[in-house]
Each structure stands twice: as structure tokens, then as C-alpha cells.
């Protein structure tokens, strides 16, 4: 590898970095972080849904821990998907409108650098937002888990539970509190948002309006949760008696649309199950694969576009 290649690669990265930071700043100026105040209210409010329990110490307050995770991760999902779609859909038309795009493209900036920079800017914003929400959720959950555990242990001791039972209760309750699996679930939320952002980027390269990009992206997001059903119809090879056209249609459906059902592993984490690292690794691979493909596809379309 000679010096020229190294310089060229270095400048690629720095160009993408500059564009990404610019896109990030541009979005931050749109005051999206105000949403964090709403999230804080939701995270705190979810503490108050402590419905009466009916069983022994093992049930005391556990539902409220699930409620905090469910509300927080639900809000994170909504926020990240909406932000990644809307922000990406806005960026290209806004740059055209402000004529920033012409200034950038008039310079020796490869179009792939421009697209990758814009996408990374959006992803950086989503990542920072999710990280801040995650810190807030983990703090609320940690405090509440300690309170619940204290209450449970007090009740268990009063009922004369043996030490091994108390230890097992502690383990079970701590599994409902902050855990690495929960952090993995937040990362899975980010991965799903990344796929949506890169998909919205692809759509925005040929769409005629922001509204069109937004609507189509949301439609694909919802349909993506059915994609696995279509794939199963195809893979079951006509066991249910479906005809050749139905099978071909389901194949086309599953080849074109992304599959978001695998990301529903987040629900299992909310229910207290552990997410193995290997699963998270596989989800990351899928996320990267989609993001890379959609970005390259965007580049192919965007490279041909005349401004």
C-alpha cells in the first residue's frame, strides 16, 4: 500500500466524519433532545403502576420492574424509529433546499462519502439519545430494584424462609433489574433504528418528497414485522396447500423486505430472560448487512442523480 492510498483513505474517513458531525449538529439544533424530558417523565411515571400482588415475597413489586423496562424500551423504540426515519428523510431535501448540497458536491467529495456522512450523523444522534435514555432507565431501574429487593427480603425473613430460598429470590429479582441483557436489548433497538435509517436514506435518494419517504419507510417498518410469516409460507413448501403464485409472492415479499421479527427478542428481555451474546452478535451482523447494502444501493442511485 503506498502513501497516496493511505492519504486518500484517511481523507475519506475525515470527510465522512466532518459531514456526520455537521448532520449531527444540524439535527441537535432541531431540539430533538427535548424528547429526553418526556422520556424522563415516562420512566418515572412507570414506577407508579405497582398493582396489588397476590402471592408471596417473590411477587412483591416485580411487576413494576417489568413496567419500567416495558415503558422505557417501548419509548426508546418509538423514538429511535421515528427519529431515524424522519431525520434521514429530512436531511437530503433540506440540503437541496438550503443549497448546501450543491456546495458540497461542487467540491471533490465523493457522493458515497456524503451519504455515509449523513447516515452516520443520524445514527450518532440516535445512539447518543438512546445512550442517555439508557442511563436514565438503568438508574431508575437500579433504584427501584433495590427497593423491591429490600421489601422482598424483609417479607421473606419475616416468613422464616431459609437462606438458600432467600438467595434464590435475590437472583430471580435481580434478573428483572438492570442487566447486560437489558443493555443488549437497547443495542438491538439501536440496530433496528439503524436499518430504518439506512432504508429511509435509500428511499430518499429517489423519492420526490420528505412525506413520501416517511410514509413508505413507516409502512416498510410495519410490514417488516410480517416478513417472517411470508418467509415461513415459502419455506414450508406448500404444506398448507398454497399454490405456486402464493409461494412466489411470499418469496418475493421475503426477499425484498427486511425482517424485523428477530428484533422482538427485546420483548423476551423485558420479560426477564437473558439474551445470549451470540444472539446479539448475529443481530449486529444482520444490522450491519442491511445498513451496508442500503447505503451502497443509495449510492448507486444517488451517483446517477443530476442536481
Amino acid at each position, binding site marked *: 500500500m503506498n502513501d497516496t492510498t493511505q492519504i486518500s483513505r484517511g481523507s475519506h474517513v475525515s470527510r465522512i466524519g466532518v459531514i456526520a458531525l455537521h448532520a449531527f449538529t444540524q439535527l441537535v439544533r432541531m431540539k430533538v433532545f427535548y424528547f429526553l424530558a418526556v422520556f424522563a417523565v415516562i420512566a418515572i411515571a412507570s414506577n407508579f403502576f405497582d398493582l396489588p400482588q397476590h402471592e408471596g415475597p417473590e411477587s412483591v413489586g416485580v411487576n413494576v420492574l*417489568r413496567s419500567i423496562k416495558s415503558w422505557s424500551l417501548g419509548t426508546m423504540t418509538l423514538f429511535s424509529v421515528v427519529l431515524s426515519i424522519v431525520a434521514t428523510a429530512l436531511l437530503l431535501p433540506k440540503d437541496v433546499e438550503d443549497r448546501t448540497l450543491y456546495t458540497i458536491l461542487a467540491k471533490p467529495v465523493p457522493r458515497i462519502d456524503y451519504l455515509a456522512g449523513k447516515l452516520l450523523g443520524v445514527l450518532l444522534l440516535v445512539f447518543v439519545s438512546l445512550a442517555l435514555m439508557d442511563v436514565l432507565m438503568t438508574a431508575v431501574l437500579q433504584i427501584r430494584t433495590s427497593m423491591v429487593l429490600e421489601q422482598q427480603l424483609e417479607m421473606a425473613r419475616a416468613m422464616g424462609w431459609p437462606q438458600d430460598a432467600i438467595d434464590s429470590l435475590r437472583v430471580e429479582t435481580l434478573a428483572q433489574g438492570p442487566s447486560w441483557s437489558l443493555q443488549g436489548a437497547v443495542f438491538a433497538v439501536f440496530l433496528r433504528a439503524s436499518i430504518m435509517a439506512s432504508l429511509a436514506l435509500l428511499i430518499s435518494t429517489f423519492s420526490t418528497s420528505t412525506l413520501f419517504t416517511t410514509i413508505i419507510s413507516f409502512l416498510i417498518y410495519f410490514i417488516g*414485522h410480517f416478513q417472517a410469516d411470508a418467509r415461513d409460507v415459502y419455506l414450508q413448501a406448500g404444506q398448507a396447500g398454497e399454490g405456486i403464485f402464493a409461494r412466489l409472492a411470499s418469496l418475493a415479499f421475503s426477499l425484498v423486505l427486511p425482517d424485523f421479527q428477530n428484533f422482538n427478542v*427485546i420483548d423476551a428481555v423485558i420479560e426477564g430472560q437473558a439474551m445470549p451474546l451470540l444472539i446479539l452478535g448475529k443481530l449486529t451482523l444482520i444490522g450491519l448487512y442491511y445498513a451496508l447494502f442500503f447505503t451502497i444501493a443509495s449510492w448507486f442511485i444517488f451517483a446517477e442523480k443530476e442536481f
Partner: protein
Amino acid sequence: MAALLAFGAARLPFEAGLAKELRAAGLTPPPMEIGTRDKIGQTSSAVALGGLRTLVATFLNLRAFSFFQEQRWDDVADAFDTIVDLAPRTRYYWETGSWHSAYNAASYYTNDSKLPALRRREAWRASILRGRAFLERGIRNNPTDWSLLAGLGFLLSDSNKTAAFRDPNEAFAAAADAYRHSADTGKALPYVRRAEFYSLARVAGKEKEALALARSLYASPQNRTPTLLILLLVLEAHENPSMDSTRRALELFGTPEKAYEALTGHWQRTRERFPVYGVAAALESLEKTLAIPAEKSIFNQPLQSTASPDDWFQK
């Protein structure tokens, strides 16, 4: 378009494999049923399908709680049917849904309803059976959950519910089975194995098995509860009718006073349908030893009320 199809073809096997792996590990729930989509409405369906099933379940749980406060039992049951379809791995929803049916709704029909006695009795019974069925469905969805299994055992061996089951013997056998599976998960609390024994001891024809379990539990001092000690004596008396039950009671309880106190308590617990082999003989002998006057004899005291539905639904 060709690139899109090629990209899809490349990822399809990987995604299908991962989906299978996640489903097998219980990390993704089965697809939402059409009936559930109808029940929760278009908006909630969209939210649930958008990867927020547990959030919708949380909302519905709040709604179910309002139904409970308003004592709308059918709505409570419907709400929980939907909730568990959305979040089938959450123990709390299965336990709470079953509890509302088998305990709250059943108590409501026992005490507060304005229905005629016969219909109240039927509603009471139906609520308990619905609670049982719900819990059994929860167990099929979560076969290794010790708490759900123990909850089923508790319901089936609850003396206030026994009359709801056509065959009490079958109910006690099923309770013992549920407790056994719960204890076998290795996560259950120590009382669960004892509870298995207490249920098994009440199954006619299973005395031998129950005695073997009693002996293995007795080996650990922490299991030596008064009920276990008495049932050990009772089952030994069943196995060997010529056994000196008084001597055995003294061995187990140490002093005549303690033995008499424990055995009188057992003698009076008629509602729980525990066997009483050898107890009467031991009590007679202990009353002589302790010089209990005839008017204070346990045999002249009223027994615990049987409190069957025949009493509850007289009016």
C-alpha cells in the same frame, strides 16, 4: 431490483435460521393470533406488531385492573387471554389472570352476587375451573416455571376449592403432580416438596408412595413440620394397622403433651381431607395418660366446619 433480490436471497437462510433459533430458545413469542389482533383494536395491533407487544400488554394489564375493580369478571378473563397472547413468558400475567378467576371471581360469587343459589354455585365452580385452565395453559407455555406449577398445586389442593372439582382424589393427585414438577425444576422453594407430599398423602391408593416420600423428607430436619410428622405416623399406621401409634407419636413428638396437641389439631382438620389412620387410637390412649376429663375429650368437641358449597349456596 436484481440486486435487492440477490441481497434478499443471501440473507434469507441466515435470518430463517436465527428466527428458528430464537423461537426454540423461547426468545421470540409465537405470532399474534388473529383473535388477539381483533380484540386489541387496530391501533394497539399496529403498536404490538411494531415490536411493542409487552408495552401493549402493560396497558391491557392496567385495563384489566379496572375491570377487576368494577368486578367485570368476564372482561377480566378476556383481557388476560389477550395479555398472555402478547406476553406469554411473563409469569405475573398467568398468575394474576388465574388468581382473578379462581379466587376473586369465585369469592364474589360466594358472597356478593345477587344471582340465585344454583346459578351462583355454577358460576363459582366455573370461575375456579377457568382459573385452573388458565394456569395449565400458562404451564404449557412455560413448562419450567416453578412458580406457575406450584400455583396450580396450591389451587388444586386448596380446601376451599376442592368441591369445585368433580373428583377430589383426582384433584389431589394432580396437585401432587404439579408440586412434583415444580420441585423437580430445582428452582422451587423447599416448601414445594413438602406440599407435594401433603397432596399425595390425600390421594386414596397412593399411600405407599406418600409414605416413601414422607420418609425421605423426614431425613432432613428442616422438613420436620408438625403436619409432616403426623402424616408420617398416619401413613405408617395405614401400612401396618397393628402398629402402636401412641408409642410412635411419642417418638415423633417427644412428650405426651406435644403429641396430644398435634394430633388433636389434625383430628379437627376435617376440611382438608387428610387421612387419620391410627390417630383416634393414639388420642384415646394419650387422653388416658394425660387424664383428660371426658367433657374436654377431643371426641366430644365440635369438628371444624366442612364449609362445602352446600353451606355457602343455601340461600
